[in-house]
């Protein structure tokens, strides 16, 4: 399925913000707000057939948990006892490295001006309407590798 993704363009380690982090996932064709189109880079990503619902696609916004959880765990165990939420190391687990994005965009005939991308005071969306396949694009910070289809299957199954 195709989704519209807002990725962070800044990097502030103090607050766990990494460049290219997947901040929000919405259905393809989403009309983003007036500040969102300035502060984030909007991409349309084709996740293939492993993930078919927006609810599962939104698991790409999971934080980088210390425990490596693929999704927010339940607040309690099966006996109803409270579970302390895992420690968050960074705001997001998954990101799209800009270098990879720029290279892919060039293949698709689009040029991305990185300086403009990082200027969060102006709207600059060079690839908003270009569908980019997910393969070799989404970095899993925990695994240190790009997501492949089997990873998406695991993400989809998380919490179920």
């Amino acid at each position, binding site marked *: 399925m195709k989704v519209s993704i807002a990725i962070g363009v800044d990097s502030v380690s103090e*607050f766990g913000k990494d460049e290219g982090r997947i*901040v929000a996932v919405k259905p393809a064709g989403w009309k983003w707000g007036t500040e969102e189109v300035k502060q984030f880079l909007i991409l349309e990503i084709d996740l293939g057939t492993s993930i078919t619902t927006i609810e599962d696609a939104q698991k790409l916004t999971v934080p980088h948990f210390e425990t490596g959880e693929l999704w927010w765990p339940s607040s*309690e165990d099966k006996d109803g006892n409270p579970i302390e939420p895992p420690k968050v190391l960074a*705001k997001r687990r998954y990101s799209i490295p800009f270098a990879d994005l720029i290279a892919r965009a060039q293949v698709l005939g689009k040029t991305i001006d990185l300086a403009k991308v990082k200027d969060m005071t102006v709207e600059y969306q060079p690839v908003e309407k270009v569908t980019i396949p997910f393969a070799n694009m989404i970095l899993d910070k925990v695994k240190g590798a790009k997501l492949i289809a089997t990873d998406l299957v695991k993400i989809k199954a998380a919490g179920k």
Partner: protein
Amino acid sequence: MGSARKVGTNESIHTYGNGTRNYTALQTWEDAHTINCVTGTTSPVLECYDDAASFNDYVVILGATTDATYFRIIRPAAGQGHDGTPNNGVTFICTTDTNIFTLQEIYSQIQDIIAKVSIASGTAIRYAFTQSGSCNSSAVVGCIAYDCLIGSTGTGQGFVIAPTASNVGFAIDCLAHNCEGDGFRTSSFTTNSGGRFYNCTSTNNGTYGFRMLGNQATGVHIWTNCLASDNTTADFSDGTTGSPTRTVTYCASKDTTADDWGGAGNHISHTFTFVNSGGDDFHLASNDAGAIDLGTDLSADAIYPFNDDIDKCVRSGSWDIGFDEYVAYSINAALGSYDVSGISAGPLANRLISAGSGDYAITGVQANVLGARLLNGSPGDYVISGINATLARGYFISADGGVYLVTGSDATILAQRFISANVGSYLITGVSAQILAARLLNAELGTFTLTGVVVDLVHTTPSAYVLVVDPGSYLVFGTNAGLLSVRILDASPGIYNLMGKEVVTLAQRILKADPGTYVLTGIDAELLKILIEYFLNAEPGEYRLTGSVARAIIMLNEQILLEEIDMRGGLTQQEHDWLATQEAYVHNKKVLVKVGDTWHFRIYDETGVSIIVDKKLKDKDGNDITDIQVGVMTQELASTV
């Protein structure tokens, strides 16, 4: 001390809603404002607009540096908040398998939001509102969780405060209703952690209304002024281990659980009377005896003093238990400034004022009304004197059948209809209009002054009508017209004087109406085609044309063979000359009549009644005329006269 809804210092406000707002995803605002609010001396605020029936969204507020002065807030924009029920306001219905609002940040707040967990399939427990992690002094205020439900083995619940060590969160003036699991939970699994529920209401939830969990002897479980009713397993419940101190005071339950932990002021086996529980309105009714005035005053609470309820109404006197403080309102409206002095209002249900965003001057006082309509009440009598209302949207009055007295109103209509009401009688600035059908005025934008009565309809197309109304009686410029059909005027272009009123008509005919009686007094009409087509193009009926002069002309031609010719009235010079060219000359009443086989010429007296001459017509040979010719007749007429 003041509102439970805290205001940040140096608030930096952005908007949330559809694509016209700053943000369409809670997470993008949260990410963009995960900053050091303290050193930045700013309090980021996200104000939500009710742009959609609900938003499918969620957020974890985590990572910003905040303190008691600078912190983050999510709240509705002015005029967008709920009315103390889950039925309207900024609403989040989240289908993603997660908690909807999660606060993991000290001092930050969620205010006046409605949220519903709606997950098709899941195995986890998910909440509409969660405070966890390092969330000390965070607060959820004036929020509503309702109908939370998860398919499969998961459970949808309302509120939970489950912080890490030495953190205590607050939920104040909140409602949990009809959730699959618990309404409210405090969970303490680390030392000195827990939550305080102040003035919350929990109704009809699938397990517990209020439940405490955890294994810490130092756990904080403080419930004050909380109301629970009709929760399936129990209204109040304790699932803790480690014997924490459980401080439950001034709470009330329908079952017998509110006093299970001792504490002052608790009430059990109480019956609560709500305004409309079937309609999810759990405000206390005026005749409630289970919660009104039974709470304790928290305006001087040592930890979190406050003095208002879910509707932002200031609590006074003896506090009520639960999220609502009963007030015998003249105006029962959301936050705003109201001065209703001089208004005599007798609303029978709901609210006197529940109006759309906009400014209303009511009895000369500016009021900021936050809801749907100016008047949205059950049938009843409303008296609003001196209204000068500029409506920003919708209707001025949208009410059921009834009598409405709106005096002294000068309303500029910005949309559709002045009155869109059911059949009934309406008194509008002294003008009595009997509305038999849908609309008094069906007009485009314009200014209407209905005082005695001048109606200026701005509807400029040539085919437009002055009044397009269903059958009924209408007082128009002093003319009393009984319309039997659709139109009062549908005339050819021209100027018509009706009762001294000059009327310019743009269409076809002066009268085109169904059978009936029409009185057109004082008409001065210039008729151009008397002998052809119509003077009055009407169906059969009676018409009285006062002051009008009408002449009849009968041509003498081959139709003289008719059995009787009746001519009345005099002739003009033009008519006289014309007749002369036809070799016929006739004065007054004369008749050629065939008696048997013979034609007679008869002359009547001046009255036209008595025959003074009756002559059998003969030809030059002395024979009776049985067939007639113009020349013969002329000779006979000449000789006879």
